[in-house]
């Protein structure tokens, strides 16, 4: 078991009103799984991903990541945990415009205290893995949207995290680059990477082995292959 969520609730304050976004979410993810979380816009998918990715704290409920209870962890330990266990892929690749592709990919390793030359080696290997071995020194503005997203995936994977979290990774891409990215996720999963993907596009979700649906703050199983 990599991840276990029990009775997770998340409320937001809107002015003086308490707005519950997630209500009693239960979810377990085991090693090597590839799941998609679907739901309409504003249903709380990103909120859930932030909770899984240790970026946010729930209003109530229990989160267990790799056997560790996340309740009561301080900010620094959460940061370290994100660095070690979680790989994020955002809708817009979120690359730093001043850094080259390798430097972007190597960024998480900086926070792990790995030496510069070794960081570069690891980043280079990862970029080769996503098919961008010939674009190492390119700046983000010299790369296409699909290439940027592949650099972002390389960055998410470079530290060998337990969990790859993708929030609408194809949302900003054209169909063809979207398919390339999906193919990359499929390959990574075949190699044993655990993936949680958030999307509202059914054709994207069908690549996953298991689908969940969020509606009215609750999660239900959508389909299984």
């Amino acid at each position, binding site marked *: 078991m990599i991840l276990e969520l029990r009775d997770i609730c998340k409320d937001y304050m809107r002015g003086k009103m308490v707005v519950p976004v997630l209500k009693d979410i239960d979810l377990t993810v085991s090693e090597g799984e590839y799941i998609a979380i679907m739901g309409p816009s504003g249903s709380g998918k990103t909120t859930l991903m932030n909770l899984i990715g240790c970026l*946010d704290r729930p209003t109530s409920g229990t989160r267990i990541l790799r056997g560790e209870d996340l309740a009561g962890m301080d900010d620094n330990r959460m940061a370290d945990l994100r660095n070690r266990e979680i790989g994020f892929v955002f809708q817009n690749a979120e690359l730093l415009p001043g850094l080259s592709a390798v430097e972007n990919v190597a960024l998480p390793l900086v*926070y792990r205290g790995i030496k510069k030359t070794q960081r570069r080696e690891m980043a280079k290997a990862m970029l080769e893995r996503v098919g961008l071995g010939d674009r190492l020194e390119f700046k983000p503005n010299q790369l296409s949207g699909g290439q940027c997203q592949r650099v972002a995936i390389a*960055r998410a994977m470079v530290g060998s995290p337990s969990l790859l979290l993708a929030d609408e990774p194809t949302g900003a891409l054209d169909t063809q680059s979207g398919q390339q990215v999906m193919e990359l996720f499929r390959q990574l999963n075949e190699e044993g990477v655990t993936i949680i993907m958030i999307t509202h596009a059914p054709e994207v979700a069908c690549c996953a082995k298991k689908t969940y649906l969020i509606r009215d703050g609750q999660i239900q199983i959508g389909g299984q292959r």
Partner: protein
Amino acid sequence: MLENISLSIQGIWNHKLRSLLTMLGIIIGIASIIAIVSTIKGTNEQIKEQLIGAGNNVVTVQLSQSGYPYEMQYNGIPEGVPVLTEEDRIHLAGLEGAQEAALYTERTYVDGLVYAGDIGFSGALRGVDQHYFDVNGYQIYLGRDFTQQDYDRYQKVAILDQNTAESLFAGQNPLGQVLEIDTEPFTVIGVVSLSSSYEPNISNYEEYATFVGFDSGSVYIPSNLWPLVCQYDEPQKVDIQAVTTDDMTSVGKESADYINAKLSVKEDSDLSYSSSDIMERAEQLQQLANATNQQLIWIASISLLVGGIGVMNIMLVTVTERTREIGLKKALGARKGRILWQFLTEAAVLTSLGGVIGVLAGIGMAQIVSRVAGSPTAISGPAILVAVLFSMLIGILFGLMPAVKASNLDPINALRRE
């Protein structure tokens, strides 16, 4: 850390114009301070040089009463003032920062005591030891110096300075001429002149008088013949040559202390040895010049403060602009402290760079001022170091608030897209 610095420099380079404008306040502040400090230092050194003349660094230690020199032509022999011996002289010459010392007795102005034929001499009469000319930068211009034999055999010989030789024996060879000092005949054996390295180039200060006093001329005789023309046991004066100009004050004080310890004067006599030190006068003049310049430094500091606020402002803008970068870095596992350091380093590098540019500009300004206004400048190493460190401090101080703000950014909000 080093990586942070190089990244900061890169960032500064990427926004050249903005960085320059941000640094401007710091640059102007530091430049003015460096220019002012250089001018102060230059003026100080000029005052020192003008007053003291290059080279000799002589301090005179003499007996004084109630703060005024104790002059023998108006006073009797004071009680309890011991005769200084060769041992004392050697001790004084061996003080730290001292190089040589000379003992002598002196009447700064004699009238009707010394005659060359019918011509009376009015000027200074000194009974000197064998070190006096050396210490005071005189060299034999004509004839010879006093020898040990002259002292041993109580030879009635005299040495004149150039002015005296001119005024007493105009056109004649002064050597071999006879002076009558208190009716005793003294043979002139030599003429001294100031060596070229000791030309006090004062022209505009009252201290000039101290030196011009020599102009009325001096007659020198061996110190052990002094009782023959004046009295036994007159209080001696000591001229001590310091190694450097800066040693003069301390050497003067120590010598006075040494001699004072030997005094056994009555308590109410108010007699003591003290150094009539040109350095002290010079320092007073320097302080006068510094006081006005120090006010300028305060004004320049305001520019630094404004510069610091400018840095804070730009850093706040930068933090806002780079919200996504900060959010992303935190999401990837950067701890708070790392973000804080990153922005602090950036601010400090920015202002330090401003400081360095300011120092260079300040040196340039000082150079221009000295060309245009003719005032001297001297670059001060410590001032440069302090200026750069201080501008770094400004960066850290005014960068702190923006950096804390950056480190406290919530990555969720930072990455949420509008």
